[in-house]
């Protein structure tokens, strides 16, 4: 399957990926509305880590053997038959945080605004390319199919 790959030496730490991810997962998908008017504000599903000159963006790796799916007590966390992406049906999620406990990438966040559920990368389901990749100015994020 196509996955997002990270080239940490190219990341400039601009956090545009976080901003575009947030907008993509907002209700309006419009940047000013998403930040100014939508309450609660959508959460970005990608996180830029930064330490000194080093930075990289991290989102769900869509693991071949996914501990989050095994830990999920509701089947909210599942693999999409069509794309192989790991998706969470947020309506089914009860917010037990078992997936957060087992994800070694810290790619899953609590969303406690409104109904409790987790929030994670869905590879911008329905889009050709995830928006974090399209908006990365230095190709630190790429989206491609590679041999395992």
């Amino acid at each position, binding site marked *: 399957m196509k*996955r*997002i*790959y*990270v*080239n*940490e030496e190219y990341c400039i730490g601009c956090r545009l990926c976080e901003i575009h991810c947030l907008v993509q997962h907002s209700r309006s998908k419009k940047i000013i509305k998403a930040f100014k008017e939508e309450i609660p504000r959508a959460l970005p599903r990608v*996180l830029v*880590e*930064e*330490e000194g000159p*080093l*930075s*990289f963006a*991290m989102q769900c*790796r*869509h*693991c*071949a053997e996914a*501990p989050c799916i*095994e*830990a999920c*007590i*509701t*089947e909210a966390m599942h693999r999409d038959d069509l794309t192989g992406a790991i998706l969470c049906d947020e309506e*089914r999620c*009860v*917010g*037990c*945080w*078992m*997936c*957060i*406990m*087992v*994800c*070694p*990438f*810290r790619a*899953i*966040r*609590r969303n*406690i605004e409104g109904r409790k559920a987790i929030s994670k990368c869905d590879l911008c389901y329905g889009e050709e390319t995830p928006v974090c990749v399209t908006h990365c100015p230095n190709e630190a994020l790429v989206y491609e199919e590679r041999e*395992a």
Partner: protein
Amino acid sequence: MRRGKRNMRYVIIGNSAAAVGAIEAIRQYDQDNPITVVADEPHPTYSRPLITYLLGGLVSEERMLYRPPDFYERYEVEPMLGVRVVQVEPQERKLTLAGGGTLSYDKLLIGTGGVPFVPSVPGGDLEGVFTFTRWEDARRMRYFIEAYGVRQAIVVGGGFIGLKTTEGLLARGIKVTIVELADRILSASFDRTASHLVETILRREGVEVRTGTTLQEIIARAGRVDHVILREGERLECDLLVFAIGVQPNTALISRGTGIATNQGILVDDYMRTTAPDVYAAGDVVEALDRLLEVRRTIAIWPLAYRQGYVAGCNMAGAEQEYEGGIPMNSVEVGGVPTISVGITDPQEDGYEVLEEFIREEMVYKKLVLGNNRLVGAILIGDIDRAGIYTGLIRDRANVGGFKNDLLAENFGLISLPRDYRKHLVTGEGIVI
């Protein structure tokens, strides 16, 4: 997919996480031979941990299912639900069912789970006294709560199951008193500081916590539970009482002479095989490898039941797979404060190093336990964001000596890990560094 001859039958006793793991594994490697699931509960496979959410009205009955309604059809499984197995005869490769029928197998998985531990207390069989491990228990409790307008409840047991039950009752507006035999709640998974912090949070939610005591007697009025007398003579009123102490392996089927060795639970090797030929076991009924302590013991948690079932299923279908061992871990939210514990959290022996951060006014407590420069345990209260990174380090027995001072730093993340370890984490799966 391998297409083989229909020449053998898989039988699975039990229909929960271990059974589902086994079915999904078997069908990866064998699409032909029949699988039969026999379970005494009448429901299609459902999520046992959700019963506390069902009790609290936080999930609907429809959302209890652990797999879609067409699961058995899709995986070509013959479900025999509501059918009790009364005897296992490995010499004959057959099961005897309640009512006298028999069922032959070539490969058998025992996934009978746990049975609630109930102390012997006078009045323990009164109406309004419940154990709480099954869908049916949640239904009966909900009915009882509505029929009799339950307003106050006693939860016996201050472990994870007790706390989850408490959360369910609180969600229904019921006042709860927890009675715990140990001198603190969560004594099996938390240290003293964490236990006391959670007790503080519970009290803030209006929960009464009685530790270091137990029930002397449960007293009825008009045929239903009315109050209890504690060991010291104190009287506590209640309209409902739940035993939520924990479960013990359900080995009732494994009588002597079956050739299946048991201790507290069924003994299994690294392939989830029991001591009887072609008989496997998985889930809360087994004593399997503890990855940290390197002993075999029961760790009754959902993800491990699935994993063990999956490993058993692979081996039953002839695709050799080793069980890498499990780590005890749990996640429970109390009064809106998330808590997670993983591994060895309160070692009593020498030779461990402890890193801690405690911000009482924010209800935040983090503790990491290191042994020989390896992370072996974690307690996280209030801030669980990095729980999975710690769990990964524990599971991988990674040497954290070089960055242990960063482990509790505010900006600790994957970026703090050595490049080689980061690379190992993601090899072939997504990140290039």
